[in-house]
């Protein structure tokens, strides 16, 4: 299979998955709840109100027609209106999605910067003290309920040490004195671009705890995966050959061996990214972070279906694209991938 053929097949698969995903979210939204029209009208509706709402929402139409309308709406960016707030969902997403992405990206950055080096070193020093410590940390990392870890970190860094802020994205006084002008919607980035150092530092300080909380699971996974593939790769003949050619050990580990070991780690990072998108739901609640997670939990409590479904759809589309990107990245890193 040529590289282009591989890419084409992979793209086609992504399209099929996306269509199936839209069907499932549609079914969850329109079919599973006993009566969406009743939910729309609110408590204690009359029969007439329900019937009118059903017409208004197109619920009296056949199912396939409803699906096509739903698809048309989604593709034109019309995610509908929140039942709870009666606001267009798209407007809310524009505010909340960047907040969540900022959190998740910061967490992934931590996973890469902490997880990969620790994995490489503990794989290279198999059986060493560092290796045993890392194994413990990584297993603890994947077993920790994020929401509990978040609480513990708050207790320690805010309440006991007073080092880091408790919650939110920005201190109130900072948002009044040197407000962040939204460009991307990620405060740290926007403040940086605008050269607003006061706000940058404040936003960064607010970001550390929730991002780290979110990163524990990815860090654990990344360490474990990197370690086990490094152990295998380091037994390869080409590593011996590289050492025999005098290549310094640091280069052998972090360039020559790591590039061979990175593919499974990338897959794990991709999984982690998605895990983080949903893990962010819990972290955001704990840290009062105004993102998709807080948005969807509020929606859950008020049975606000259009919001739940829209968030599910948006995050899933992200997931599909991340996986697509990872597969293509693997093909770029390892020339043998497309041959399989």
């Amino acid at each position, binding site marked *: 299979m040529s590289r282009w053929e591989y890419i084409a097949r992979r793209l086609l*698969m992504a399209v*099929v*998955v996306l269509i*199936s*995903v839209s069907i*499932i*979210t549609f079914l*969850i*939204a329109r079919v*599973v*709840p006993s009566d969406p029209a009743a939910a729309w009208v609110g408590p204690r509706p009359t029969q007439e109100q329900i019937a009118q709402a059903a017409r208004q929402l197109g619920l009296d139409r056949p199912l396939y027609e409803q699906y096509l309308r739903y698809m048309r709406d989604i593709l034109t960016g019309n995610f509908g209106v929140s039942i709870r707030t009666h606001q267009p969902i798209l407007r809310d997403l524009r505010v909340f999605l960047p907040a969540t992405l900022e959190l998740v990206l910061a967490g992934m950055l931590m996973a890469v910067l902490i997880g990969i080096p620790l994995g490489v070193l503990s794989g290279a020093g*198999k059986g060493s003290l560092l290796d045993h410590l890392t194994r413990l940390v990584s*297993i*603890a990392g*994947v*077993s*920790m*309920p994020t*929401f*509990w*870890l978040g*609480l*513990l970190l*708050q*207790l320690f860094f*805010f*309440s006991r040490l007073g080092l880091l802020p*408790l919650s939110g994205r920005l201190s109130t006084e900072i948002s009044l004195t040197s407000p962040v002008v939204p460009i991307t919607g990620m405060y740290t980035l926007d403040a940086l671009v605008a050269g607003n150092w006061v706000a940058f530092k404040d936003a960064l300080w607010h970001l550390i705890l929730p991002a780290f909380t979110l990163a524990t699971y990815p860090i654990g996974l990344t360490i474990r995966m990197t370690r*086990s593939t490094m*152990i*295998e790769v380091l037994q390869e003949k080409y590593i011996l050959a590289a050492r025999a050619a005098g290549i310094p050990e640091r280069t052998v580990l972090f360039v020559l061996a790591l590039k061979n070991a990175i593919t499974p780690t990338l897959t794990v990072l991709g999984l982690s990214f*998605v*895990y983080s*998108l*949903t*893990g962010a*739901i*819990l972290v955001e*609640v*704990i840290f009062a972070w105004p993102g998709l997670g807080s948005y*969807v*939990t509020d*929606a*859950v*409590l008020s*049975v606000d*279906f259009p919001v*739940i*479904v829209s*968030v*599910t759809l948006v*995050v*899933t589309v992200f*997931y*599909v694209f991340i*996986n697509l990107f990872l597969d293509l990245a693997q093909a770029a890193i390892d020339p043998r991938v497309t041959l399989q």
Partner: protein
Amino acid sequence: MTASVDLTGLPADIRTSRYKEVGLMLQAFRRDPLAVVSLVVILLFVLGAVFAPWLTPYPDQGLGNPNIIEKFQPPGPTHPLGTDYLGRDVLARILYGGRSSLSIGFLVVIIAVAIGIPLGAVAGYYGGRIDNLIMRITDVFLAFPPLLLAIAIAAALGSSFINAMIAIAFTWWPWYARLVRAQTLSLRELHFVEAARSMGVSDFTIIVQHILPNVMTPVLVQATMDIGSAILTGAAISFVGLGVHPPTADWGKMISTGRIYFIERPWFAGSAGAAIFLVTLSFNLLGDAIRDVADPRTRRAVS
């Protein structure tokens, strides 16, 4: 001749595979003392949940009766883990909470295995169009972020213990279908399967008698590790407000109601979090130890 095929011609390890899993467990315990500790922790929590009414002097509080006079008592002699915002004994709540939190973990994995094994075996054994169809369905399910899909389904079905369980299991089975399919594919080509087929043994019998016993080891390893994650997911679902209804005790719910008091009175949300952490950690360590003895590839990497 259908069901009664003479199996004496098979290699010994295939015939005895029904008992192999037990042997693996024992081997794991011998090699890894941490696995024994993990099993003890798990057993303690399970027994604690089962015998909760006899273990605590406050079974009514464990079931949810408030006791406002004693609210926010810090840990002490009468209440070893303190009391919560309604004055209920936290230890009693943890013991009773184990009933829903642990059973959701076990049940989710059991349902997922029960759906995943037949689908995976059929896909792997028959191949072709059936295989393609089943695998594309798993692709679609795996395309969803698991927790979010579970939340969406649980929200659609309405908040309850059963619905939360169904929702999580619904997002979990594709992993087992894939695992079993991959194993079946490799077994299908083996001589003893071909031999059985040539002797006219029905497909059903081959799958049940010859293939399934041989896929149990990887399924067992995966399931052990998954119970921990399923408990975590269950806790997360009730944390966001789905799952069991108050006043039923549940670890996830205990954290979500306790978190607003956490900075001042960390003991009740803290205890629930510690319970989830300990149980999940134990299942992960146990699964790790079993995998190390079951899978020669990692065994080489470990030893």
